[in-house]
């Protein structure tokens, strides 16, 4: 494969093994498909003869009945995050049954999915479409010889890829916390309730065969809410457990108590206020990180003081958003993924806590995705660079550590995108000359806010003026980078193995934004 330089200045391949030719990133505005249609793939769905009992006695039987063969594509969602047990149980069964060379698609593979490496080695899995980290990330970066590079997509990008047919799912295993005998399912109710089924909803529409995997078979019909209707579902399997929803809100999803992070969150709120963004009818998205949640807290206090009612909040919905909804501060919440198991209950009691699918959320090619309607997005980052590019995937040591989520989608759509992060974390500087992996291009980012000051993208002279007029602490990003480096010292360069392409970063429109190389062992 040849490498070409894309519009973000990165060298990317022009074709990928196992996938074919790909186009390089052309800029954040170049999103029109060619020809100018959003062509939805033709989906062939299995027919279920009348009178069929959809409930399979066990996972094995369901798999047998699904018509799954070697080489086919299976899909999962990660709505239970690190509490998920669906992937583990399904892959174990598939492996026992002797399947080989499956393509694994998931909205994300997390630390709890480290065992996937074993299934790669056993030959069960031959390709992965999912953000990867942990043992799976390590595998691709240090060991992989036979699998094609992983394509890491945003939530909107994955929705687009599924709709256009770049990913064709044969069998979707959709975890649900409540399901009836016909396959009406949801994540809102039941002992393992996890909230929105946004990614599962998308998969269900575009798969040949859908298997609902639940630990809570309810009396027909499922009530009071159906997230995925029975006409898309072919089988129902009941397991002892689909996962532990208490592990949902772990990791990156608690409000911070750190004084430094609170100070930084306050600066971000001040910037929003100075820009006039917090006004009647405004719309808002905050990433699930602790700092973003602190920003929301300050925004909420401001909205209370000035008696402002916003239009909607989007995401990644956390409990603090529900409070805002129930206080009447927002008219609606659009929830593609719940970061708190209590979100299910909120969706049941609040008619305008809407459940939306991944395409509605962020697919840039449809008639109007939610992120394109956003006024403000407050998002985190692993690190950033002086061109305002954001890295969400690789740590300072070069290893894959996290996913992109809907970050590039929100940043690409919001009128004001504010990235929040401390100037250094645990002794490591957050602002670099050039990020290791570009996930959200700098052109989408209006400001980077640290505890030591606010950096405003030179493109946004209007925002700069507003910030200065409000007496905010605006600093030059290159100066902040240098000052921080003076404090932390200079890091040793990371040794990549450029002969190994572990993963590629796909921008929302399907173009290739960056490459994640392997690591020298």
């Amino acid at each position: 494969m040849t490498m070409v330089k894309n519009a973000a200045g990165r060298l990317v391949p022009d074709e990928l093994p196992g996938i074919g030719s790909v186009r390089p990133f052309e800029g954040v505005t170049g999103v029109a498909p060619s020809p100018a249609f959003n062509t939805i793939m033709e989906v062939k769905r299995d027919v279920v003869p009348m009178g069929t009992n959809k409930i399979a006695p066990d996972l094995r039987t369901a798999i047998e009945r699904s018509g799954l063969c070697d080489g086919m594509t299976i899909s999962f969602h990660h709505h239970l995050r690190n509490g998920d047990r669906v992937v583990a149980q399904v892959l174990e069964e598939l492996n026992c049954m002797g399947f080989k060379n499956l393509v694994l698609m998931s909205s994300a593979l997390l630390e709890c999915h480290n065992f996937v490496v074993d299934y790669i080695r056993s030959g069960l899995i031959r390709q992965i479409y999912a953000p990867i980290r942990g043992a799976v990330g390590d595998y691709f970066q240090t060991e992989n010889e036979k699998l094609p590079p992983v394509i890491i997509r945003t939530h909107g990008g994955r929705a687009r890829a599924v709709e256009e047919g770049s990913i064709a799912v044969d069998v979707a295993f959709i975890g649900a916390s409540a399901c009836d005998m016909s396959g009406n399912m949801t994540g809102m109710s039941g002992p393992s309730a996890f909230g929105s089924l946004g990614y599962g909803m998308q998969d269900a529409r575009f798969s040949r065969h859908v298997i609902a995997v639940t630990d809570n078979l309810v009396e027909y019909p499922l009530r009071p809410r159906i997230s995925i209707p029975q006409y898309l579902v072919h089988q129902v399997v009941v397991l002892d457990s689909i996962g532990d929803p208490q592990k949902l809100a772990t990791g990156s999803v608690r409000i911070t108590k750190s004084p430094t992070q609170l100070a930084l969150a306050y600066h971000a709120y001040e910037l929003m206020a100075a820009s006039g963004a917090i006004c009647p009818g405004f719309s808002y998205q905050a990433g699930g990180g602790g700092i973003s949640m602190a920003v929301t807290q300050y925004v909420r206090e401001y909205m209370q003081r000035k008696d402002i009612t916003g239009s909607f909040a989007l995401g990644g919905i956390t409990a603090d958003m529900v409070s805002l909804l129930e206080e009447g501060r927002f008219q609606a919440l659009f929830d593609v993924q719940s970061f708190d198991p209590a979100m299910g209950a909120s969706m049941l009691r609040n008619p305008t806590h809407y459940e939306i699918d991944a395409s509605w959320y962020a697919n840039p090619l449809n008639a109007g995705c939610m992120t394109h309607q956003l006024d403000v997005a407050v998002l985190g980052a692993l690190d950033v660079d002086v061109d305002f590019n954001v890295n969400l995937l690789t740590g300072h040591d070069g290893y894959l550590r996290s996913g992109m989520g809907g970050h590039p989608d929100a940043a690409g759509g919001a009128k004001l995108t504010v990235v929040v992060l401390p100037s250094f974390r645990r002794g490591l500087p957050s602002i670099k000359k050039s990020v290791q992996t570009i996930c959200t291009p700098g052109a989408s980012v209006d400001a980077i806010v640290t505890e030591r000051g606010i950096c405003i993208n030179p493109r946004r002279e209007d925002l700069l003026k507003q910030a200065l007029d409000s007496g905010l602490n605006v600093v030059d990003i290159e100066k902040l980078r240098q000052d921080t480096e003076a404090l932390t010292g200079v890091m040793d360069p990371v040794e990549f193995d450029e002969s190994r392409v572990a993963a590629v970063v796909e921008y929302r429109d399907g173009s290739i934004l960056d490459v994640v190389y392997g690591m020298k062992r």
Partner: protein
Amino acid sequence: MLQSCPSLGADCVILDLEDAVAPVHKDEARRLVAYALRCLPFDGVEKVVRINDVSTPWWELDLEEIVPAGPDVIRLPKAESVENIRMVDNRITELEKANGLPEGGIELHILLESAQAVENVAKLVRSCKRVKGVGLGGQDLTADMGIRKTSSGDELAYANGHMILAAKAAKIDCFDSVYTDINDGEGLLANTRKAATMGFSGKSAIHPSQVRIINQGFCPPEDILSHAQDVIAAAKIARTEGRGAFSVNGKMVDGPVIRQAMNVLAQAGIPCNSEEVLP
């Protein structure tokens, strides 16, 4: 938190070598603070170091390491006598000279922690030119007086008033001590407003979450500020018309009232030219 202390919104940061540090760790803390003073980007935030008091074996070592690192202020706890303060002042002067620092550049703030010290405050604040700030060490003082510290602070009302008067007479700053209930934001705001009304120049925060509230507490309330602005506006007109006294919003205004209004504006950070307004 040390490494981000300049970014927490305070006007000055106090790095403590005294009560926050156990005896066995004094050397470590001293070295860390000296390096922090040199390496952290303070960007206009004042650097204050509270050293150990003169009855300890540490105060001289503290000064020897800290002065060369360039603090803005040394905070001296348990200041009891003019002699003690002068002894510290002299030592600082020697160290400033030895390290090529401007003599007298480092300020001294003294903490009064006994009844005797409060009684003597007028002399203590004048003991040397370096003394530019004074405060009470509330806990030690109430212990010395044999009384309980309460949330209202009534028991220290006279001590505070006495100290504030002495500070104003000597034209130095005075600082209110900490409000210990970190979770009571409303109580802190009320407490801070009272401190501002009494004439304190500032107040110590025991936790970063208190900084914003304290700043808010020192900002004049809206109605007071807008009246003060009305007074200043009227004063400018009166001056050009040669009138000495006039009324604003139904209240008589003369020289002293105009000066008070200027103070209010200064507290709110609004510049005001005395020549334009004073008769």
